[in-house]
């Protein structure tokens, strides 16, 4: 059964990429909706299977690591697969209604969308360093393609910037992979970790890890390598922005986190961990500050991503040389942050798109008086904002709570300040939007109500982000499931 | 307490309390007006019917309510009920249409407070009614709405609030010390408490505001004259006595000797009775003169309170005397105030009769024989007799009282003098006249019903006082008349020149 599910999971997005390549946008939309349904069901099935039976390794082509490529199907991975199915599915549904089907180049949206999805699945499940590289490139190129799709000079400029950054990041990562392979003769992360667990750390591997993490940090837009992100996320079509912010940046972070959790303890150093944490903190502060100063709605949301990503990197110091409990808390916090940010940010971008559609302008000022029309999108935007501000009962709050606990538990109290200040700063830019929408101005009589389907999708995502906090424990139990065959490789 | 009496007691307080609702519900002006004298009737019936000592428990009220009547309260209640009734009658005739309803509302509330505090035995309801009376009284003071009235109201309110707070603090402390919510437990607790002096100070000051203690009296000469005449009557006749009642029920009489407090009070009383007189005779307006007279008379009562504080043995004797004096003064002063609202009839006969009736209560105040004043003064004199009092200042009390009597009459004369200047000729409305007549007659007739045989102080029968007593009463009056005559002459000659 699980084999079928795995095959379905890997096959569907690729197959649908091909299928939709052969159709135009409108027909592609129908096809894609079917595909989304399949993909969601498969992901859910796999998630349930793993929740019931525990995780396993899946050797592709019948070859096990190190010779072949093994997929690591554990609780965390399937959770992210499911998350991807939900968020990407929502974005797909939204895009189907949102994107103008009459522009000929929009037919290429669907194939790129599906390739992106398949790349994401490849990354969540990947256990092989080089395969992860390919998966990353799959994501990057399709993402760049989506940003540039039919765009103006501004969009092209943003996508070029994005492309160059992504490529540089990939190369740095690949260089690290080359060093790892040169050192250990294997590409399997688990293999390397196993070997390291009973051998002294060979010299030179520090550089490998540093290169890989630096490359991934660039692709994740960690401060100060974040400058490519806001233009790209801000200028893309809203469903695309949602995908990029919610999932794409998480992919590279996910790899970095996996590397750190497996190899960080032996190879990494305290200074490195603290440095990364510090950069994350700087991202939180700087990103939020810039978000406060943006004039355009989507730029605000995009800079908010920069800030939110900063939280994720607190994982590094909080799992290095700390007790088992603290490390677990930090990991759980990170997981929840990824999930809740994905849901919330997707909701936010989709809602922002709807709002822009409604008022016909992408400026924050243009929202003046919008709340009078009771747009659902504003409500969704607000709900998503709750999660971003990490106010209860959202998933963002649960994540922050766990990270707080971890910081206090490990005695690294300085991260506490970052977490709290970050929450307040995010409140600053989110309330700026609320404030704008509550302003009663005379000029706004024109208001276009987007169709209900467009408005419902972000609402559902935002509700999920909000409700995640209440169900965090259940989610985290699945994540912490043991492996079927511990240490299989 | 019997069911009927309980019901009557409840009715006595609740009728005036609920009467304002009629104003809100839109009762006609005429009904409102004519209901005024009826409000204290239940209380009057109660005080006449009920036996002292009965109590009514109201466990649901505030911190557990207990209302009742003892000898002391009976006198006060009697005074209150009578005075409010006659003032009510007077008011029916007196009131103009302007803001009638507002006046009625505050009248009812003040009355309810006044009656309530008299019968309340538990601290919370006592204080509640006291506050109700104070704040509702403000409505009566500023009723006329003139600039002067507003200023008086401000002073009244400011001082009243300060007084309220002092009372609150004092009662709180005392209640905590007694660990009881009943007034009756307080004096003993105060007597034993280490914070005794603080509590006493707070209570004296708090009630002193109402009772017009020197330095706390400023509001009184301002507020009493500006109020409508019937309101002035009750203010000076009844409400001012509430402060006295407050002292009587809270201060530790008879339990402990407090010479310092006693001295202070005696001094205060002396200052009040003489100082107020000195200020009062300089006033131009009759009601202001009366207000000072009130202060002065209260000073005499303060004097007794001080003596009672100082000498625990004598206190049981003094308290009834104070009550007696209160009754006497209340009725007389009420009548005097009402007379300030009269119009002079044109017929000579009537005019003379009226002047006589106006003057008599005043002379009663001064202690004219065969009036309640004579009785009260005698009782007071006996009670404060030097040889029976263990008190440092005891020797000064007698001359003080004599001086007080002189001052009293001077003030009364001054009042009559100013009144002649002010009174206009006209026809009094019948109810107004009836009210005033009732008040005067009450004041004069009370003599015959007063429980004069208090502790055997006044030798029976009162209508046949011993000669030395008469002389003791008369000679200060003569002195006063002499002074007054002299003054008139001097002023005339000054004017002529």
């Amino acid at each position, binding site marked *: 059964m699980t084999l079928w599910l795995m095959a379905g999971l890997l096959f569907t997005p690729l197959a649908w990429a091909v299928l939709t390549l052969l159709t135009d946008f409108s027909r592609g939309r129908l096809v894609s909706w079917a595909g989304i349904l399949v993909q969601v069901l498969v992901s859910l099935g796999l998630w349930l299977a793993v929740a019931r039976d525990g995780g396993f390794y899946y050797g*592709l082509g019948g070859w096990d690591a190190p010779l072949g490529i093994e997929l690591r199907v554990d609780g965390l991975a399937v959770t992210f697969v499911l998350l991807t199915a939900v968020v990407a599915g929502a974005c797909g549904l939204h895009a189907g209604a949102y994107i103008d089907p009459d*522009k000929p180049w929009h037919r290429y949206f669907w194939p790129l969308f599906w390739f992106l999805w398949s790349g994401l699945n*490849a990354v969540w499940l990947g256990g092989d360093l080089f395969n992860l590289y390919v998966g990353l490139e799959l994501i990057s190129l399709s993402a760049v393609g989506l940003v*540039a799709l039919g765009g103006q000079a501004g969009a092209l400029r943003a996508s070029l910037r994005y492309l160059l950054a992504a490529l540089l990041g990939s190369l740095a990562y690949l260089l690290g992979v080359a060093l790892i392979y040169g050192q250990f003769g294997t590409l399997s992360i688990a293999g390397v970790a196993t070997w390291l667990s009973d051998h002294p750390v060979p010299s030179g591997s520090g550089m490998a890890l540093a290169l890989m993490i630096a490359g991934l940090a660039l692709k994740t837009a960690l401060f100060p390598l974040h400058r490519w992100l806001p233009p790209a996320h801000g200028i893309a079509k809203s469903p695309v922005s949602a995908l990029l912010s919610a999932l794409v940046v998480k992919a590279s972070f996910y790899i970095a986190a996996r590397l750190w959790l497996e190899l960080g303890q032996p190879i990494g150093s305290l200074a490195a961990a603290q440095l990364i944490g510090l950069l994350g903190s700087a991202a939180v502060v700087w990103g939020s500050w810039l978000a406060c100063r943006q004039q355009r709605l989507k730029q605000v949301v995009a800079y908010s991503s920069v800030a939110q990503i900063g939280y994720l990197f607190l994982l590094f110091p909080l799992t290095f040389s700390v007790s088992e409990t603290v490390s677990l808390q930090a990991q759980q916090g990170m997981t929840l942050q990824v999930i809740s940010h994905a849901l919330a940010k997707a909701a936010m971008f989709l809602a922002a798109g709807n709002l*822009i559609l409604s008022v016909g302008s992408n400026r924050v000022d243009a929202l003046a008086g919008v709340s009078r029309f009771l747009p659902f999108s504003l409500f969704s935007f607000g709900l998503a904002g709750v999660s971003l501000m990490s106010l209860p009962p959202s998933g963002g709050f649960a994540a922050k709570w766990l990270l707080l606990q971890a910081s206090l538990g490990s005695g690294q109290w300085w991260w506490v300040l970052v977490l709290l200040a970050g929450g307040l700063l995010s409140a600053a830019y989110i309330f700026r939007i609320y404030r704008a929408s509550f302003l009663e101005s005379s000029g706004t009589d024109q208001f276009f109500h987007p169709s209900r389907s467009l408005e419902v999708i972000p609402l559902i995502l935002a509700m999920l982000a909000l409700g995640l906090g209440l169900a965090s424990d259940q989610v985290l139990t699945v994540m912490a499931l043991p492996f079927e065959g511990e240490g299989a490789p | 307490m019997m069911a009927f009496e309980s019901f009557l007691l409840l009715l006595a307080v609740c009728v005036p309390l609920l009467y304002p609702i009629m104003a809100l519900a839109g009762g006609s002006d005429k009904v409102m007006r004519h209901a005024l004298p009826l409000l204290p009737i239940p209380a009057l019936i109660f005080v006449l019917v009920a036996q002292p000592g009965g109590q009514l428990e109201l466990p649901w009220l505030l911190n557990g309510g207990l209302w009742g009547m003892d000898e002391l309260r009976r006198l006060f209640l009697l005074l209150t009920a009578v005075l409010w009734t006659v003032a009510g009658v007077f008011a029916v005739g007196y009131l103009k249409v302007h803001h009638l309803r507002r006046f009625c509302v505050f009248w009812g509330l003040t009355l309810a407070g006044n009656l309530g505090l008299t019968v309340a035995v538990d601290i919370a309801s006592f204080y509640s009614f006291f506050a109700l009376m104070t704040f509702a009284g403000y409505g009566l003071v500023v009723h006329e709405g003139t600039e002067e009235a507003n200023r008086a109201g401000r002073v009244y309110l400011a001082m009243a609030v300060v007084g309220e707070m002092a009372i609150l603090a004092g009662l709180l402390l005392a209640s905590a010390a007694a660990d009881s919510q009943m007034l009756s437990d307080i004096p003993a607790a105060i007597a034993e408490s280490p914070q005794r002096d603080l509590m006493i100070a707070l209570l004296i000051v708090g009630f002193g505001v109402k009772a017009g203690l020197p330095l706390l009296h400023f509001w009184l000469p301002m507020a009493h004259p500006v109020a409508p005449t019937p309101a002035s009557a009750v203010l000076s006749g009844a409400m001012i006595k509430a402060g006295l009642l407050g002292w009587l029920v809270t201060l530790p009489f008879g339990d402990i000797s407090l010479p310092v407090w006693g001295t202070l009070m005696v001094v205060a009383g002396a200052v009040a009775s003489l100082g107020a007189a000195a200020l009062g005779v300089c006033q131009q307006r009759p009601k202001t003169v009366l207000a000072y007279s009130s202060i002065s008379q209260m000073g005499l009562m303060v004097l007794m309170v001080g003596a009672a504080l100082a000498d625990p043995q004598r206190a049981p004797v003094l308290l009834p005397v104070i009550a007696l004096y209160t009754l006497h003064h209340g009725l007389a002063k009420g009548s005097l105030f009402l007379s300030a609202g009269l119009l002079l009839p044109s017929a000579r006969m009537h005019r003379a009769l009226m002047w006589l009736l106006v003057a008599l209560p005043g002379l009663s105040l001064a202690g004219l024989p065969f009036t309640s004043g004579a009785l009260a003064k005698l009782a007071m004199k006996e009670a404060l007799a030097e040889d029976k009092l263990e008190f440092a200042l005891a020797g000064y009390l007698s001359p003080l009282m004599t001086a007080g009597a002189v001052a009293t009459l001077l003030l009364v004369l001054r009042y009559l003098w100013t009144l002649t200047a002010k009174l206009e000729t006209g026809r009094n409305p019948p109810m107004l006249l009836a009210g005033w007549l009732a008040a005067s007659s009450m004041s004069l007739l009370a003599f015959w019903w007063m429980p004069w045989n208090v502790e055997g102080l006044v030798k029976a029968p009162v209508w046949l006082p011993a000669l030395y007593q008469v002389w003791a009463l008369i000679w200060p009056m003569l002195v006063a008349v002499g002074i007054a005559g002299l003054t008139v002459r001097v002023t005339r000659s000054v004017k002529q020149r």
Partner: protein
Amino acid sequence: MIQALRISAIAIACLMFVAGLAASIWAIAGNPLPESLPQLLSENMSRSGVEHPVTAVLLNFRSYDTLLEIGVLVIAGIAGISMAKTTSLEDPELRTSDSLLYALQRWFVPLMLVLAGYLLWAGADRPGGAFQAGAVLAATGVLMRLGGIPMEFIRPGLLLRLGLALGFTVFLLVALASAIGGDAFLAYPPAMAKTLIVVIESVLTLSIAMVLLALFVSAPVNDAEDPEEGGSS
């Protein structure tokens, strides 16, 4: 001034980077290799269905990589043609009027086609394979394009998209078929491995060539564009 400073700073950083990298490489080169993958590989060569180890790795042991890699290529192709203009392929600007090229082309095109075929065939046991063959094929197409030979199929229509997707589709179908057969995704039955690999290689060649050519041909002279959401224009 600032520019120069910045450049020199970057230069120093890069030098340090090189030094660090070289040091690591040197250090790693001195460490013993804990695991020898080539040995494992040669043990399993017999089950791979091809003789050449690189091809075996590419199309059997790590075929998932290759599948995704083709996906990447297709993405690039898609993204490329998404920007193509749809009407005139015969843009005179793009045509070289070089007569030498025109003459050479008559000779070279058939030769290159043959070479591509050879490379594909050789991939099984010596260096070569689908990608090399596809590259040569694409070069042929470029040459033809430059020479002005009309290539209707390159028009971004259904045909082009079919061509782009062909190799990938076949690869994917094989992968799926193996999964349906009951094994893991992409697990070829050993008996059919060789055949399948050859089929895949052939279609891949075609597709790779198509992608590369499409990328070359699709000239972004399309003036139609999407305004930015809520943008001023």
